């Protein structure tokens, strides 16, 4: 099972997911494509610039392998303090 979290605008278009790694998916780019197919509104948001992805609470800058137990966070642009 993996956990997929969505923050900011992305959280408006998808609930957090707790799922088995979808058949045939091996990395985070694959997961992003799969999510966009499942949920068109999410696909539109994922296509916008400025989003970031964290794998197990570390920002990734290139597609990374998926493993059982991973936590993947899709994050809209930040706006603090």
């Amino acid at each position, binding site marked *: 099972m993996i956990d997929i*979290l969505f*923050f*900011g*605008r992305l*959280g408006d278009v998808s609930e957090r997911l707790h799922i088995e790694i979808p058949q045939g998916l091996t990395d985070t780019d694959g997961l992003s494509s799969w999510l966009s197919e499942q949920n068109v509104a999410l696909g539109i948001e994922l296509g916008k610039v*400025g989003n970031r992805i*964290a794998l197990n*609470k570390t920002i990734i800058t290139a597609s990374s392998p998926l493993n059982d137990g991973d936590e993947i*966070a899709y*994050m*809209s*642009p*930040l*706006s*603090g*303090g």
Partner: protein
Amino acid sequence: MTATYLKICQESFDPEAEHKAFRDAVGGAGAIVAFTGLVRGEGADLTLTLSHYEGFTESQILEIAKTAERRWPLAGWRILHRVGAMKAEEPIVFVATASRHRRDAFEAADFLMDYLKSEAAFWKSESAAGERRWIEPRAQDIDDKKRWTK
């Protein structure tokens, strides 16, 4: 030894109580600088909602604070950040720094705030009369942060 404290608060916090706790913690430091960010008073009917990524947000802020500790000789720092729904004039953020000389405390507080505003993992939305809009960093916040990389 540096007196450090970080808290992400679900409920409102009291900036003066935090200031006192910090002042007690840093003992004989000569200089304390405290920044308090409040929800602006323009829209009394406005609700500001902040969310964070538990665990991730905290460790990111700790990294930023460690950078400040390496850069300035600090007797301590204290950071509180609200999440959840809040109304006009409620505190959102409190950042205090203490040092022997005031310049270090000023610069470190300024630095921490610039990073919190532009890099810390918080998502902010405003709602009024049933409509909600997301707030993204101002260009000014990005520029402010760049001051520290030279």
